Structures are given as C-alpha cells and as structure tokens.
C-alpha cells in the first residue's frame, strides 16, 4: 500500500500542478494567465525528477520497471508536446483582451487546455503504474477524456466539433469493448489484481489449460485497446480526427493515446505472460494469432492508404496507423529468453520505438503547426495540403529541414533515430521465429518510402509555390512550436548517435518477471467464477 503511494508520487505532483494551472488560467490579469504553460512545464519536470528519485520502487506486475521508464519518457516527450500545443487556445480572446476589452473567463479555454494536457499525461503515467484492472481502466479513461475535449476546442471551426464527436463515440465504443474484456478476465480468474491474475493464469496453464474466459477477455481487451493505438479494426477514426483537430493537437493525439494503449497492451499481455507455445516464449495461441493478423493488416493498410493522400495530416495519420502495426511485432516477439539482450527483447524494442516515434512525429506536426495560410480576406487557415510545403527547405530552412529529417526518420533511414528504433523490432521478430511477419514489416517499410520521400521531396527539391491567387503561407507567431520542431530535429539526429542510454533505459523498463509457477495442489485455488 505505502509502496504503491511512493510509486504514485509523480502522478500526484502532476495532478496538483494541473489543479493550479486550471485555476490560474481564469485569472483577470494577463501576466498570471501567461504563467500557465511555464507552470505546467515545471510540474512535468518535478514529476520527472520524482520518477527518477523513486526509481528503486517497482510495481508488482510482471513488468516491474515499466513505471520508471514510462514516467521518465512521458515527462520528456510531454515537455515537447507542451511546446507543441503552446498558444493553441484563446487566440482571438487574448487579441480582444489586448485591445482593452474585459477578459471573459467563461469564454476562455486556455487554463483548461493546459490542464487537459497535464490530465492526459497524468492518466498516461497511471497506465504505467496500474497494478489492477480497475485502476488500468480509470487510467485509460483519464488519458482519453481530456483528448476528446481538446480535439473539439482546438480550432473554432465546425470540423473540429465533428472530429471531437466522432472521436468521443468511437472512443466510448473502444472503452466498452476493453472493459468487457477486463470483466471476462475477472470472471476467469476471480481477481482484478495483476499479480494474482498472472499467478492464477500460470497455475491454470500448468494444470490443463488457461480458462477460455481469460483468453476471450485478453482478446477483447486487445481489440478494444486497438482503438487507442489505432490498429486495424478500430483505425477508421484516425485520419478524420487528425484532420479535424489543429495540427498541434493532432501531434498530441499521435503520441499520448498510442503510448497509453501500448502500456496497457503490454500489461494485459503480461497477465497471460510470454511463456507459452512450443518455445515457451510466446503468448498463448489465441492472443498471438489475433495480434499477428492485426499487426500485418495494420501496417499494410496504413501504408497503402497513406500513399493515396494529399493532406499532410492524413498522411501522418495513416503513418501513425502503420507505426502501431510495426510496434505490435515487438509485442508478439515478447521479452525472449530470460537475460536476453536488447536485440532479442521485443518489449524493450516497443518501449524504445514508442519514444522515437513520438519524437519524430512531433517534429512533423510541429512544422505544420508553425505554418498557416493567409487568405485574401485576411482570415487564417491551417496548412494541410502537401503543396503548401513546396520548397519549404529553401524559404524557411529550419522548418523545411525539420520536416525532411522527421519524414526520413519515420521512414527509418539508417543514420537516423527511426532506423535505430526499427532494427530491434526486426531482430526481436526474427529471434521469436516470426519470419513471415518480419517479411511483411520489411515490405511495408519499403512501401512507406513512397510517401515519406514525397514529403521530403516536396520540401527539399520542388520550387516554392508561385501561383498569384493561392493563399499565402505565413509563419504562426508561436516561438515555442518552432522550438518543439528544432528539439525534435536534434533528437532525430542526436539520439541516433548518443541514444544508447535510452536503449539501456528501455531495457530496464522491459525487465520481465514471469509469474511464479506454483505449487503444491493445496496452494492452487481451483479456478471458478467469482462467488457473489
């Protein structure tokens, strides 16, 4: 109990910051309102420090060091996301207030916007430290609920309302499915505690076979969590929602729900454990087949559909779908034999790739968020069409190079971060003897080259737009977003060279402690549905 509390200190710190930010955002004075993003950043740094300080405290689930790695990473990437969303809310309202109109708190969304970012990150941290099905469900909801609102209020166009409603209803559907799965797991084991579940499942596997209710529960949970990571049967919302929300919120959506989904998938797969099959190092047959099919379909569909898009946000949305498919390969491969190094450990590969995907995609979305189109009547619109990026490397070198490096990184070109992330996925897949899946992964990386290279080509080689009537592309007045892009560009190059510490950290985070096999017959409770 008390160790659980120590584990939760980063979340508590972040939550308190959230509350303060929410109140400060309603202040009458502009100087106080302007404190919001800075305070949010300080909260994130403090909670990252707490996560590092309490690194010795482990959760009692099968991945005991996942909270430590997860929270450190969330704080790091969270800071970049905070820069990316800076200035998203209240632009018109602040302009009015600057002209001398009284500030109207009821119309303001700035405090809410930053506190929703922090709420969502708090939920994401809770996902890593959850040791109970109920806590995991609440954490997933805490991650998602703020994002529904953020999508709706990100722009004042109807499009983002539509996107928000779509996202909300499909999100509720996904939540219902995985909650049903959680209920099945409870029905098959009689407990909601992760440690007890994994022990019971290990006992069941040793004596006859895992209860089909548990397998059904895990399968349903994986399908439902597929919504969070945008994997194939639940991917339909992704392009519409990304296109409907503002570029910076789309960047937020690309990392946070996906990370929550993968942390939850790792926890749920950890319940049944990677100790089944012929090699005794894979998931039980049902979840494994499901994940196999979903992974293959997700990467193929994501990449093929991305080729047909002209909207940059839709391209990035389909690329987000495809990357979920890549990461599922690591989940299937599992931790490998005990004491396996980084190359064979699929979980470490997933954890590492999650960060590198987040960093690279933030760069791409930051470029979009930094630009806006000015129409002839003076109104501003988001940059979305791929033609708007023509010759960006010549007209705006920093943004152009960020886009080029981000897309090259997402493609996985050798000297960059994406390559370093994808390589362990390949080796882990081969180590787990999933040769066909690794082949699919390889072919998909080749398909993906088409649209990533097109993005880079448009920015780098084509000449800038010269049509006289076309809306003019101008830079948005948010320095922080540009910094998010620059940091992402530095990370794409720098982490590829000096990234071994992150790899080691991911390896610690992926420490797998298989459930203890029991025991004399007296200690094994015969499995039945819970007594009322």
């Amino acid at each position, binding site marked *: 109990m*008390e160790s659980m509390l120590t584990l939760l200190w980063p979340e508590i710190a972040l939550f308190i910051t959230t509350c303060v930010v929410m109140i400060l955002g*309603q202040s009458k004075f502009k100087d106080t309102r302007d404190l919001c993003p800075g305070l949010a950043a300080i909260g994130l740094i403090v909670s990252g420090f707490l996560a590092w300080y309490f690194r010795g405290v482990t959760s009692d689930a099968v991945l005991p060091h996942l909270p430590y790695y997860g929270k450190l990473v969330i704080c790091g990437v969270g800071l970049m996301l905070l820069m990316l969303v800076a200035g998203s809310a209240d632009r018109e309202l602040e302009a009015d207030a600057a002209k001398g109109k009284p500030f109207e*708190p009821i119309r303001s969304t700035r405090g809410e916007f930053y506190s929703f970012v922090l709420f969502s990150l708090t939920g994401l941290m809770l996902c890593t430290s959850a040791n109970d099905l109920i806590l995991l469900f609440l954490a997933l909801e805490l991650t998602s609920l703020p994002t529904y609102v953020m999508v709706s209020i990100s722009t004042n166009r109807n499009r983002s309302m539509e996107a928000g409603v779509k996202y909300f209803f499909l999100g509720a559907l996904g939540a219902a499915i995985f909650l049903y799965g959680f209920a099945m797991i409870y029905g098959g084991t009689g407990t909601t505690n992760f440690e007890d579940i994994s022990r019971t499942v290990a006992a069941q596997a040793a004596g006859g076979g*895992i209860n089909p209710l548990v397998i059904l529960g895990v399968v349903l949970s994986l399908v439902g969590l597929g919504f969070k990571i945008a994997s194939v049967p639940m991917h339909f919302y992704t392009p519409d929602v990304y296109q409907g929300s503002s570029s910076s919120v789309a960047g937020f959506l690309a990392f946070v729900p996906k990370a929550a989904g993968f942390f939850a998938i790792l926890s749920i797969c950890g319940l049944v454990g990677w100790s089944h099959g012929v090699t005794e190092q894979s998931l039980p*047959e049902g979840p494994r087949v499901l994940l196999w099919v979903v992974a293959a379909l997700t990467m193929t569909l994501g990449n093929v559909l991305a080729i047909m898009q002209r909207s940059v946000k839709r391209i990035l949305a389909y690329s987000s779908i495809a990357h979920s498919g890549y990461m599922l390969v690591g989940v299937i491969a599992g931790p490998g034999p005990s004491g396996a190094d980084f190359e064979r450990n699929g979980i470490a590969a997933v954890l590492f790739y999650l960060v590198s995907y987040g960093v690279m995609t933030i760069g791409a979305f930051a470029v979009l968020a930094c630009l806006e189109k000015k129409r002839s009547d003076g109104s501003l619109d988001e940059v979305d069409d791929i033609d708007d990026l023509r010759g960006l490397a010549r007209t705006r070198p920093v943004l152009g190079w960020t886009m080029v490096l981000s897309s090259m990184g997402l493609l996985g070109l050798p000297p960059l971060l994406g390559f370093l992330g994808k390589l362990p996925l390949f080796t882990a897949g081969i180590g787990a003897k999933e040769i066909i899946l690794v082949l699919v992964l390889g072919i998909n990386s080749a398909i993906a080259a088409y649209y990533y290279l097109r993005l880079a080509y448009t920015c780098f080689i084509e000449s800038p737009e010269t049509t006289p009537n076309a809306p003019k592309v101008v830079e948005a007045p948010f320095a922080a977003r540009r910094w998010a892009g620059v940091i992402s560009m530095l990370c794409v190059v720098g982490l590829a060279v000096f990234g071994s510490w992150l790899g080691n950290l991911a390896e610690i985070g992926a420490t797998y402690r298989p459930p203890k096999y029991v025991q004399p017959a007296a200690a094994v409770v*015969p499995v039945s*549905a819970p007594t*009322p």
Partner: protein
Amino acid sequence: MAMPLAIHSEPAFVASLAASDLSSYVPVMILITMAITFGIINVFGSLVIGPRRDGPTKSAAYESGMNAVGTARKRFNVRFYLIAMVFLVFDIEIIFLYPWAVTFPNLAQGTNESLIWLARILFFVFTTVIAYVYGVRKGVFKFD
C-alpha cells in the same frame, strides 16, 4: 498453427468448466427471468384488468399538478446547466464522504493506516475545493 480453442479440448477440463463456471451464474439468470416476467405480467395485467377512461383533460400534459403554460422545447438559461454541474460536484462528494465517515471510526486511531485514510479523503476534498474555486473564477455564481 493450431486454433485457439484446441488448448481446451481435454474433456475433463470442459466438464469442470461447465460445473464450476455456469452454475454461479444461475442467480443472475433467475433474476433476469424474474425481471422479464414481472414486466410482461404488468403490461398485460393493466391491458386486461385496467379501466379505460379517456378525455381531453386526461391526455393534457401537466407537471406536479400544474397545467402546462407552454411547450417544453424552450431555451433554458445556460446558468441552470452550470448550477447543475456545480451541484454534481458536491453531490458526488457527499456520496464518497458518507461511507468513508462510517468506516473511519472502525480503524485504530493514530495508526499509519488511519492516517493514510485521512490523507486520502483530504486529497479528495482538495479536488472538490479546486472544482469549486474553478467554478467561482469561471463566474458560475454571478447572477447579474
């Protein structure tokens, strides 16, 4: 690649599953059957033995004994919605505080456990206070 169900083909396992799992759902089944039967009996009962007296007054809409003054499709002041939200905050707080207050005296006073319980509820009250302050700053209680 074996299919998922192949794991459980042992007859002994299937038998034990049927015996242990389904029997514990019998009360639920009985409850569902009772609920459906109750509904059907009520509907048919009032159809068969209920009196039928119709008239303009009977079919008129009323609320708590008052005659209706207009259509229900009217715009409400958004303030009612905000007040309802603030009410919910305190409503939920009471719901959680009550069982806590009933349980708390049963813990040994001054022990680590009781302190943690106290800290938990204080943290919860803190969140409610934040919600209240947020409402005030947002101008929910300004009735101009």
